[in-house]
Each structure stands twice: as C-alpha cells, then as structure tokens.
C-alpha cells in the first residue's frame, strides 16, 4: 500500500467519523432527566419523587436578587424582568411583589363567594353587611379610595381583596416602589421554570434565557443579577466541572502527545492514535440513537470513561510493530489477545443489559458497540493507514534493563495471599461510611452560595427544597378535603415555630363540599335585598348602588362548584396543577411501571423554614400516613442506594461473565487465574486505599474501578502471554509502560482536581492502574518473566 493511498484512507476515515458524528449530533438527544437513569421506584414516595416532584414546585424555583444601583432603578429593572419573564414560555410564573392578583384571575371572580372563607364564619345578614359598609365609608375617606371604588358596587364585602391576600405570599419581603426588596436593598424576584428541577439541561436553558432577558433591559449592565436555587446550582456545578475537565484535558493532551513522541519517536502515532477511540465513540452514539433515540447525560459521561480502555489498542499496535514486517502481520499476531480482552469485557458488560435500568442498558450498548468498533478499527483499518515501522520498540534504550529489573523482583508465593489479606482487613476495618449516596456531595455548592440561598429564601418566604408535605387520598376532592382539615394543624405548627410557613392545595381551591356549604349560606335575592336595605339605613350610599352585588350573589348561588380542571385553566392554574398530582396513575413517559393499583391522588404542600421535622410525625399518626412529611434528600438517597445495588449486582454478574470468558479464551483455569488474580487483588487494594483515606464510595468510584479493571485485564493478559521470544516480550513491556504512563498521566492529573467527582474518577483510575501494573508484574507466572533474565 503506497503512501498516497494511506493518506487518502486516513482522510476517508476522518471523514466517516466526522459524518457519523454530525449525524449523531442531529439524531441523538441528550437527556438529563434523572428519571431515566435510576431504577424503577420501589416505594410510593419514590414514585412520587420521580414522576411528579421533579416537576414539582420547590425544585423549579429560581430566586433572583438585583443589586448595585439606587432602589428606584432596581425597581424599574425588576418590573422589566418581571414583564420579560412573564412572556417567556420557559417560565410558568414570575413574581416581584407588583402583582395585582385581583387583576390576574378575572375568570375566578364569579366564584369569589365559593372560594373565599368569609361565609364559613359569617352570613350576609344586616348586621354583618352594615359593619362592612361602614368600613367601606372609612375606606372611601382614605387615600386608597380610588383603588377600592371600582369594586365597591359589586363586591362591598371585598371578597376579591380577601382572595388576593389569601393567594399572595404569606410573609412577603418589604416593598419599595411596589416591588420586593431585601433588607440589604436588593430587588427580589421569584421565577418558576416550566422545566423539571431534575432536568439540568432544561434548567440551564431557562437560566440562560433569563440572563438574556435581563441583559436586554436598559441599564442592566451596571446592575448585578444574582440567581439562586436548585437549577442554578446544578448549572454552576456542571459548568465548573466541565471547565475544570477541559482545563485538565488540555494539559493531559499536551502531556500525552509528548509521551507518544518520546515513546515512539515519530509523529504517526500522534496523528492516528485517537482514531479508533473516536470511531468507537461515534459508533456507540450512533447505536444509542438507533436503539433508544436518546441518551442520558450520565450514560455519556460513564460510557466515555469506560471506553477509555480502547485507547490502549492502537498503542499496543505501535509497540509491537517490527521493522520489515508489514504492520498487518504484526496486528494479526497481536489480535487473538486483543480480541480476548475485547470479547471478555463486552461479555461482561452484557450484565448491564439485563439490569432493567434504561440508563445502564444504554451504558452497555454504548460501551460494547464502542469497544467492538474501536477494536475492529485497530485490527483492520489502523494497519492500512500507518506507514511501515522504521524502528523496533524492543530496541528502545533502557527497556532491556527495565525488563531485567522487573524480572529480578522477588516473587514469593505467599505474596498474593498477604496482599489479599491486608486488602480485606483494611477494607473491612477502616472507619467511616462505606458509601456516598448524596450525589450532590460530589458537586458541592460553595458555602457562600448556600448561605446566600438561605438568606434569599428566608427573605422571600420561598419554599424549602428539601421537605414537602404529601397528602394522599383516593380522589382529587379527597386531597382537597384533607388539605382543608390539615390547614389548622399546620397553623398550630407555625405558632409553635416548627415551621415558618406553608401552602396547601386548598389555599387555592376549596373542596366541592366546602364550596357547596358556602353556597348554601348565600341568601336568596329577597333575603339579601331586605338585609341590605336594613344595613344601609342612615348611611350615605345612594339607593341601588349595590345592585351588581345582589346580582353576583344570586349568580354565585347557582354556579356549579369550581373543579380542579376548571381552576387549572385560570391564571393561577399552574400553581394548583403543581400541587395536585396523580400518584399511581398510568405510567408516564418511558417508565415501564404498571399502573394497575387503585386510584390515588397526592397533594403536595410546600413548606418554608422547616425547623422541626419531627413535629410532623403527629400529622402522619393522626391521618394514618395519609399526610406525611417527605424528605426529598432522604428519598433521593434511598433511590441512589437502590440504584447502586443494581449496579453492584450487574458488576458482580459482569465479573463472573468476565472470569468465564477469560477461562474459556485461555482454555486453562490456571492461566485464567494468572490473569484474574492480579486484577482482583488490585481492585481490592484500590478499595483499601480509598477506605483507609476515609473516602466514601460513590457511583463514580464504581465506574472508575471498572475502567481500571479493564485496563488491568490488558496488563495481566499481555504479561501472561507466552511468546518464547525475548524481543516480543520487550515490545509487550514497551506497550504496557506506554499505556500505564499515559493512564497515570491522564487520571493522575484528574486526581488533582478541585471538583470531587473528577477527583474521584482520577484518583480511582490512577491508583487502579498503578496497582494493576504492579501486581501483574509481581504475579506474572513463575519463570515467565524470569526465563529471559
């Protein structure tokens, strides 16, 4: 094959990768919804957590604060931002204190006598009406008279105002110029995104849109916009992690290129070494697009990590080439071993396919597809692209000495036993938690931001993101009735300072029973006319002024009660919709859960300032569990635990499959033990070091351990190989050293990261590579390395 053909083929290869990549970018949607990546929910609360609360109230709130200008300016900007966000479909609601609720929901006004609690305690009789009318006269004397006058004729008892107050925040911040301000003089706003709190991608899009709106406001440049809330934290964490990964990626790329140049003294490896891995990655993505149509963000991250083993394939080829022998021939000799490694790992990953979790199935499809394609490219494409070898890596200066050094190391037979025993003892006895199930601990929010969030949350009376009050009943009306019954209990908890505030679904919509009871207390026209005439005696109101009031009361007597469906079409509908959800309805989206249980609805009460979670136990007891406090953090962690257990089972099965595959491929249990022994002990030792360092294990550690084991499999397989040829053994050592050095470089740098998740991956893989290499050398079959010495 001549030079021109090779270059042409190289270009074609690149072009195919680029074209596939382009196709994937257009056809594969990356989904960041956590629901696709965790196992099906086990408990009712978990189901609620996944199906509804991700879309629920607290987690979708963004708290905004404007500062750095005179208050009047900030108030203008607050109004501008409020108006812009109100138009933005990414936001369900925005509030800055200026809202005139009575004007927001005109469609609810006819229902005011059914919605307002006035009639629970009063009747529209002469004494009550007279007292009300006297107050209205005083109102007409006040400077606010003009506000009231438009309502007076149809609503002299001011039910509209009572509803507006009922629906307004309970502890609003102080206002200046009609908008909310904090004690520090920041203008405050709350925005609720349409996107679920669990969907960092959509949250980030909403936040970006918000920032764009703000930047477009006149004079916004001089004003500082602070955003806080779960969506913001998620976005910041992702951005910080990506920035750090990019920075470290740049450093390690330079290092890796230098390493290749030094190891092979040629630019060819630099130009082609990434191609098999890239081919594998785009093929993996294309498979995901074809099979699933979408991929979860975590699948992509984990999959890329696991695919890292494929980086070794081309390095092995470069190290094993010989001068004067066609590369294709060398690769053909190497192939059985590479194929064994690839097949074994792929068989092992089949375990993930059977896990029953979409995210893990995607991971298996991506990794298996990627590894097979990367292997195939290495076997059939790579040799046709690279020019013939000009030097034999076996002749690398110092390599022979390194070989002798390694060969002369003592290899006592008891060493594996000692290593294993020490590992087990440390893993078992090290103090501290074994698992880290709080995923947010891996992408921590800076303390200053947390403190600011708490401050803004308190100032705005915004709901707690950790706790929710769940009210369960067989129907929506049952939930609303339960919610009405619970309101006084919760008010008592507020008085006792167990919590600062609450919002129940019945705050917006009373049950039909309550509405009917209020309706029944509305007087008929004749009775009302008589009561009104008596009440008006001696008051300066003109005759007939309240005719619209009489007509509205009469109309309200005949209205069909307001249903949740009807209420949800109103301007305030989104709020009720988020608080009143089916809890065991038909399965939503792609989740494969059967929904054949009895009907169940859940009311989600938001709580602010939960000071004493234990105080809610009484509510749960009194209602036999129908009402209980849901700790989102605990529930999420329980989900992660369930998820981790699935992964552990999958990994256990994978390990068994791997052992079987290796045994089968090597056709000897003894040889298989030579390969699997060092792998097992090295993995044990990584665990031991992490445990001894007091690092609790997370999912990311598990994935990293798996990658390290994949790399370790290569080291052990190649050291175990009997070639009977010392030059070939030197090439094996060369290849392994380059692989170990590059892995240590990439992951060792990552271990220095300030982001815990990157540090977890880096540290685990780097430690793993070091242990796998060392143990592979020390546990290589007796006489195997020594023979050449």
């Amino acid at each position, binding site marked *: 094959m001549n030079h021109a053909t090779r270059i042409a083929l190289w270009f074609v290869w690149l072009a195919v990768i680029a074209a596939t990549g382009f196709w994937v970018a257009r056809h594969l949607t990356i989904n960041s919804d956590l629901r696709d990546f965790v196992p099906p929910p086990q408990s009712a609360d978990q189901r609620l957590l996944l199906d509804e609360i991700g879309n629920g109230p607290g987690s979708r709130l963004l708290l905004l604060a404007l500062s750095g200008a005179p208050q*009047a300016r900030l*108030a203008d900007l607050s109004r501008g931002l409020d108006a812009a966000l109100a138009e933005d479909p990414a936001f369900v609601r925005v509030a800055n*204190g*200026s809202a*005139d609720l009575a004007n927001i929901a005109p469609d609810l006004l006819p229902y005011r006598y059914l919605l307002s609690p006035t009639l629970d305690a009063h009747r529209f009789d002469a004494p009550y009406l007279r007292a009300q009318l006297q107050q209205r*006269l*005083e109102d*007409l*004397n*006040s*400077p*606010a*008279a*003009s*506000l009231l*006058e438009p309502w*007076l*004729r149809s609503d002299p008892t001011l039910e509209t105002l009572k509803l507006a107050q009922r629906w307004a925040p309970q502890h609003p911040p102080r*206002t*200046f*110029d*009609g*908008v909310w301000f904090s004690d520090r003089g920041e203008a405050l706003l709350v925005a609720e995104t349409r996107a679920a709190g669990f969907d960092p991608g959509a949250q980030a899009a909403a936040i970006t849109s918000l920032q764009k709106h703000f930047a477009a406001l006149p004079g916004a440049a001089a004003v500082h916009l602070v955003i806080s809330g779960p969506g913001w934290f998620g976005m910041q964490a992702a951005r910080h992690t990506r920035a750090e990964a990019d920075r470290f990626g740049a450093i390690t790329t330079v290092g890796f290129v230098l390493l290749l140049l030094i190891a092979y003294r040629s630019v060819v490896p630099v130009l082609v070494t990434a191609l098999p891995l890239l081919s594998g990655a785009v093929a993996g993505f294309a498979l995901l697009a074809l099979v699933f149509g979408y991929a979860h963000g975590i699948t992509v991250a984990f999959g890329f990590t696991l695919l890292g083993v494929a980086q070794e394939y081309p390095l092995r080829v470069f190290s094993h080439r010989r001068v004067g022998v066609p590369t294709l021939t060398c690769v053909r000799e190497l192939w059985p071993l590479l194929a064994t490694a690839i097949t074994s790992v792929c068989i092992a990953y089949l375990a993930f396919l059977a896990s029953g979790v979409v995210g893990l199935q995607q991971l298996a499809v991506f990794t298996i597809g990627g590894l097979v394609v990367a292997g195939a490219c290495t076997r059939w494409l790579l040799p046709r692209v690279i020019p013939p070898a000009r030097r034999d890596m076996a002749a690398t200066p110092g390599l022979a000495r390194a070989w002798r050094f390694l060969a002369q190391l003592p290899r006592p037979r008891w060493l594996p036993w000692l290593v294993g025993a020490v590992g087990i003892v440390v893993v078992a006895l090290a103090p501290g938690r074994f698992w880290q199930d709080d995923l947010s601990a891996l992408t921590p929010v800076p303390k200053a931001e947390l403190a600011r969030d708490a401050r803004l949350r308190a100032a705005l009376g915004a709901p707690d993101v950790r706790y929710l009050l769940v009210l369960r009943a067989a129907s929506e009306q049952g939930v609303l009735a339960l919610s009405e019954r619970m309101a006084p209990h919760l008010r008592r908890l507020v008085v006792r300072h167990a919590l600062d505030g609450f919002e129940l679904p019945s705050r917006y919509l009373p049950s039909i029973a309550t509405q009917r009871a209020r309706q029944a207390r509305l007087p008929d026209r004749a009775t009302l006319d008589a009561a009104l005439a008596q009440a008006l005696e001696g008051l*300066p*109101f*003109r*005759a007939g*002024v309240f005719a619209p009031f009489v007509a509205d009361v009469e109309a309200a007597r005949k209205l069909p009660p307001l249903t949740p469906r009807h209420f949800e079409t109103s301007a305030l509908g989104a709020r009720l919709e988020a608080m009143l959800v089916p809890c065991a309805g038909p399965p939503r989206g792609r989740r494969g859960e059967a929904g054949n249980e009895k009907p169940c609805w859940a009311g989600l009460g938001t709580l602010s300032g939960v000071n004493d979670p234990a105080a809610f136990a009484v509510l749960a007891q009194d209602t036999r569990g129908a009402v209980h406090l849901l700790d989102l953090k605990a529930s999420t962690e329980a989900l992660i635990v369930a998820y981790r257990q699935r992964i552990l089972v999958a990994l256990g099965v994978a390990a068994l499959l791997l052992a079987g595959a290796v045994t089968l491929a090597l056709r000897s249990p003894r040889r298989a033990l030579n390969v699997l022994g060092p792998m097992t002990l090295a993995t044990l030792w990584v665990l031991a070091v992490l445990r001894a360092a007091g690092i609790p294990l997370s999912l990311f550690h598990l994935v990293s351990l798996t990658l390290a084991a994949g790399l370790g499999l290569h080291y052990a397989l190649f050291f175990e190989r009997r070639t009977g040829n010392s030059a070939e053994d030197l090439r094996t050592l060369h290849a392994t050293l380059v692989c170990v050095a590059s892995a240590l470089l990439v992951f060792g740098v990552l271990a220095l990261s300030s982001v815990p998740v990157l540090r977890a991956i880096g540290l685990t893989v780097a430690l793993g590579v070091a242990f796998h290499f060392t143990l592979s050398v020390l546990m290589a079959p007796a006489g195997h390395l020594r023979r050449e010495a």
Partner: protein
Amino acid sequence: MRRSARALVWLLVPVAALAATPDLAQSLIVGMGQTPPAETPFIQVSYRAVLDRPLIASGTLRWLGGERLERDTTEPFQETARLGDGELTVQRGPGRVHRIALARAPQAAALLTGFSALLSGDAAGLERDFTLSATGDAAHWVITLAPRTRELQQRIASIVVDGRGHAPDCLVLHDANGDATFTLMGTLAKAGLKDAAPAQAALAARCQAGP
C-alpha cells in the same frame, strides 16, 4: 403655621408652573428651604357618585422630609396614612397596616410625584406626567395640572390648587369618573366648614374666595 403650610405647597404646587409664570415663581419659591417636619391641619371633603352626600374627614398633614408624607385623620375616625418609598400604608385605629403599591394607586402617586418633583426641583419630571398652567397673582393664584398620559387620564381629570401668597388654601383632585376630593389646608382648614354637608359648588366658591 403659615411657614409650615408654605412647606406643604411644595407637595402641591409644581415648580414647572413657576417657569410658566415667573413672577409667581419668584414669590412661591421663597417658601423653599423649610426643614422637615412641617405640618398643617386639613379638611377633606369628597364627592362620590356612590354617595348621596359628601364624606368629610379632618386631621393633620405632615411632610416628613424627602419623599415622605403623612396624613393623620382624627375625625370621624382614627387613621394614619403614609406615602413614600413607592407605597401607601394605611393603618386604621390599632388595626393592621395595609400596604398598597403606589403603582396601583395613581391618585395617591400623583400627589407624591408633585411633592417630590418640587423638592428636587425636577420640573421636567412633573412635566412628563402633567401639563401645567397657572393664573392669577400673588393675592390669589390657581395652578392646574392636567394629566398627559392616557393611563393617568383614565384615572385623573385634573388637579387644581388655589393659594394666596406663599400658602396653598385648597387642593381639588378631580377623578376621571366625576368624583372630586377637596382638601382644605392652613387657615382655610382652621376656619372649618360652615355646613355639615356643603354643596360641591359652594365649596369650590369658598376655595376661590379664600379665608
């Protein structure tokens, strides 16, 4: 009291009017440089379409300095209303404080705008919202504010201030719906009302005639 009442003129008399009639401007501006708090008694008489006779209230108006104004009503009931910081707060008797954003109460906001514009000498600010005209002389002047914007026009027809020398006597807020609120101040307020339910025309004549 005359000096205090003069201070309140800045609440009610737009500086821009001074520009329109320079003589008047000179004589009115003398009252500037007051130190808060300044106060005057007031009597408010409102004529409203829903009522068959006027509502009367009285008490004390206070300028607290800056953009803040307080109205203490003592008759026929106890009420304290404060205007400033973009909101109107009303507390009746010992009851809870009601807060209303001035953005939602244009009539109350219009009063405060005039006041703050005067104090800051921001005639242009006032002219954004109102067309100003002045007639008369130092012995009796009348300044009329007509709203410019359609929004304000939907709520307010005009504001008319009658005064003598450095002191305003009477401010009439004509709502767009025909309601009218008369506020008598200074000597005119001290003199009191002769009639328990004065006709609107009679009261208007009294504002013109002065104390």
